[in-house]
């Protein structure tokens, strides 16, 4: 993963941040939280946050049309050319990856289950070789059989032909043997393809990795492993004639306007324990005004495909009205809002100076500046609560999380300083981040740390500014505002890019603290080679603890989204696997 920053969570965030700026109008507290009138199944009303605790309106009722609306356009509907969490979620309706996440509330949604594969991957060679067996009887929408060669082809086209399909991540290229040499199926026309993916028969696929990687099942849950028939693939135009392997197929697709999906007759429920194929039709309307989406969602006419939460005005209405609040879900988005401390810059190379910062910041003030508890809970660990490996702890506990000037000053003294002048960076197009930085500057001033705000556009934040260690060290950038979400819900997926000392790159760096700790580096490498889940997760907890002891970053809040829940749709469940979005696999229409 070195040097190639995952953009899925970041891109999705851009949208969230834009909304966040205008989303701070929450008004009054309603008592709907204590509302106990939630009923399960078929009903039209449930309690607030019901979809984060269970499936709302669970039902097997068939028929009707489910409409999704999106305020923008996705990067692509092509399963091999997308990096948005909501497309990872939605594409499963027409493209089945080897593995996927079981629909479930909150962190239960992080459970991996086999989809196209008959069972989980079988590791051998200490986790360097992974073998998957496909289910039998799998067919495309045209009735032709799906083979493991199609899966191999899908991985090759999505990861190795960056000149044609560039929008998805390229983890496979980084981890597969010979990944750096293979030029992709459009350039390399040899029938053999990439030799480190073997297909001994039509239902078996074997991946050979450079190093042991115990979370490989997470990697193959990406839509990049959904089969694509080579004969039908026409590169970037494949999006116009996607061949479905899932329960729905494209009836029509208008670029940037609308996509209509209908039942796939050749999809066999016997090959698929997850999908229910409930509605007759699924319509995706693109470029719909964000306020219109909120209205349609509340009227029960649509689901917000982006899943980034409601707009400002809607949020104020929804939270002041107990009956409306009952139809909302306020949930974690698998993301941490934090401030990185530059561990390579004087005086922050001294751990005591970093600890002074940890103690000085009034996190409640930051939380209020960001929009209050609706936008996030006060954070004290690197891993958010919905990521495996999270363990509650607070190394720099202060009364009411309000910061402790005396302790901060003591640390500053231990560092041999009475005052520090430094710069703090934030992304200029993310008002929430600037507001948080403003609150931090205010907290720090009280202990004698004078931070000056520097704003840079988010598009260049990592390539030209905060993500360039030379720039930070030269421009006296000691503190950097940051948000992070994992590409897959595991400690490794979350921590590797932001704490691994070997992942520090000269540009596009996401380890903003330039944190290079031998223990952490070793533990990360050890974790990914550890087979036992519990043991692996405990290593993540250790890494978290070590990072906090070293004060490499200041966790600020665990990011939360506020979703409006339409009452007319069935099987709504907010899953941590997709940033708190509803799981789109089995949403159906309730009787009106």
């Amino acid at each position, binding site marked *: 993963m070195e040097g190639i920053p995952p953009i899925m969570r970041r891109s999705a965030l851009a949208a969230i941040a834009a909304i966040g*700026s*205008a989303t*701070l*109008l*929450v*008004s*009054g*507290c309603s008592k709907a939280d204590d509302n106990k009138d939630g009923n399960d199944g078929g009903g039209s009303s449930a309690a607030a946050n019901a979809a984060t605790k269970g499936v709302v309106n669970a039902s097997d009722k068939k028929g009707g049309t489910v409409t999704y609306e999106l305020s923008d356009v996705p990067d692509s509907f092509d399963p091999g050319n997308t990096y948005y969490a909501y497309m990872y979620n939605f594409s499963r309706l027409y493209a089945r990856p080897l593995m996927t996440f079981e629909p479930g509330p909150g962190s239960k949604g992080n459970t991996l289950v086999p989809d196209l594969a008959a069972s989980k991957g079988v590791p051998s060679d200490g986790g360097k070789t992974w073998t998957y067996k496909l289910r039998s009887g799998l067919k495309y929408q045209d009735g032709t059989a799906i083979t493991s060669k199609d899966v191999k082809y899908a991985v090759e086209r999505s990861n190795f032909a960056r000149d044609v399909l560039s929008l998805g991540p390229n983890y496979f290229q980084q981890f597969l043997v010979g990944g750096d040499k293979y030029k992709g199926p459009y350039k390399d026309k040899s029938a053999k393809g990439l030799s480190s993916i073997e297909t001994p028969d039509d239902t078996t696929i074997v991946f050979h990795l450079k190093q042991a990687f115990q979370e490989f099942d997470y990697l193959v849950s990406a839509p990049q492993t959904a089969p694509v028939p080579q004969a039908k693939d026409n590169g970037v135009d494949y999006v116009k004639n996607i061949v479905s392997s899932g329960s729905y197929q494209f009836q029509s697709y208008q670029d940037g306007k609308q996509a209509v999906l209908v039942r796939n007759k050749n999809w066999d429920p016997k090959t698929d324990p997850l999908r229910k194929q409930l509605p007759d039709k699924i319509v995706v309307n693109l470029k719909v005004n964000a306020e219109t989406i909120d209205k349609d969602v509340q009227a029960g006419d649509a689901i917000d495909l982006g899943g980034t939460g409601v707009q*400002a*005005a809607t949020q*104020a209405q929804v*939270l002041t009205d107990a009956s409306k609040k009952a139809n909302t879900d306020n949930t974690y988005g698998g993301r941490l809002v934090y401030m990185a401390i530059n561990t390579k810059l004087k005086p922050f190379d001294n751990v005591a100076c970093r600890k002074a910062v940890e103690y000085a910041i009034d996190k*409640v*003030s930051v*939380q*209020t*500046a960001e*929009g*209050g*508890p*609706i936008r996030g809970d006060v954070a004290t660990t690197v891993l958010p609560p919905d990521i495996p490996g999270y363990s509650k702890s607070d190394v720099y506990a202060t009364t009411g999380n309000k910061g402790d000037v005396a302790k901060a000053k003591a640390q500053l003294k231990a560092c041999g300083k009475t005052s520090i002048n430094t*710069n703090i960076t934030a992304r*200029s197009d993310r*008002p929430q981040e*600037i*507001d948080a930085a*403003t*609150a931090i*500057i*205010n907290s720090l*001033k009280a202990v004698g740390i004078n931070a*000056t*705000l*520097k*704003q*840079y*556009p988010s598009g260049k934040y990592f390539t030209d500014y905060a993500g360039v260690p030379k*720039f930070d060290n030269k*421009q*006296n950038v000691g503190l950097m505002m940051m948000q992070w979400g994992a590409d897959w819900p595991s400690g490794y997926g979350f921590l590797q890019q932001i704490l691994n000392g070997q992942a520090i790159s000269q540009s596009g760096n996401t380890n903003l603290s330039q944190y290079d700790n031998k223990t952490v580096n070793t533990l990360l490498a050890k974790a990914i080679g550890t087979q036992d889940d519990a043991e692996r997760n405990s290593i993540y907890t250790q890494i978290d603890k070590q990072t906090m002891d070293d004060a490499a970053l200041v966790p600020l809040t665990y990011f939360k989204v506020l979703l409006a829940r339409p009452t007319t749709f069935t099987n709504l469940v907010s899953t941590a696997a997709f940033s708190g979005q509803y799981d789109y696999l089995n949403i159906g229409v309730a009787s009106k």
Partner: protein
Amino acid sequence: MTAPIETTGAAAEAQPEAVLQGAGKGQIEGRSLGQIAWSRFKKDRVAVAGAVIVVLLILVAVLARPIQALFGLDPNAFHQDLIDANTSLPNGGWGGMSLSHPLGVDPKFGRDIATRILEGSWVSLVVAFGSTILSNVIGAIMGVVAGYYGGRVDSVISRLMDTFLAFPLLLFAIAISATLQGGAFGLNGLPLHLSVLIFVIGFFNWPYLGRIVRGQTLALREREFVDASRGLGAKGPYILFRELMPNLVGPIIVYSTLLIPTNILFEASLSFLGVGIQPPQASWGGMLREAVTYYQVDPEYMIVPGLAIFVTVLAFNLLGDGLRDALDPRSR
């Protein structure tokens, strides 16, 4: 050596014209251009009102920091105890106005709005005056040189003016303010932002005044007093700055007073766009920027800084118009 004669010459040159203008209203004798202008200005009530407000504003801006120190006000002090964490807004409408916070406090942080308006006033005026002075000094010198020497010098300077006027100023301002974020010329923080704003706004506005001054100089240089001065052996710079300049003071003052409000608006726009004054430093444009999120819920946040900008710009415009009428009646 020849100075006394020359200056009298210049005054005598200007006077008959002014007397002619006032002649219709009866006997006016022995009054200087300034006196005549002042008498005209006094009669213009709107302009006087503008002038009074401008003087008050300048007083407020100059005294902003001392007032804060005297009353223990801090534009950046948080009062988050007044903020409802769920709404980010202060309790009570209109920014939660109270005796201790007469204009209320801002959302999210609870900073006193009255103090921030006060703080913003000197920022606005420092940038506006600084940039106006900068552009006028350049504009006056370039204009008078171009107008007096003519020929090739004029062509070069005039093309230079065209080039500057063709500059996409707003885009350039945004770009340069963004690139100088990191610190430059050993400056950082507020001093950096102030000097960048003054430079960007001032350095590209000079051709407007330059053209006016050039035109006036073209007319003046053919006058007898210039010829006389030249005949007595005066050299270029002397004629430029001792003969021509005094006659150009009128248009320059008028144009300056009209340029200041434009520059205030420019500063506010840049801060509104997030490339001017950076938070947490208070500025009127910045306050407007923060208000955008809340205008539907509480218009207070938009009205207060909006009103401050409106009143300031209006006052300077009224004063400028009055000065123009008083100093240069022909332009009516």
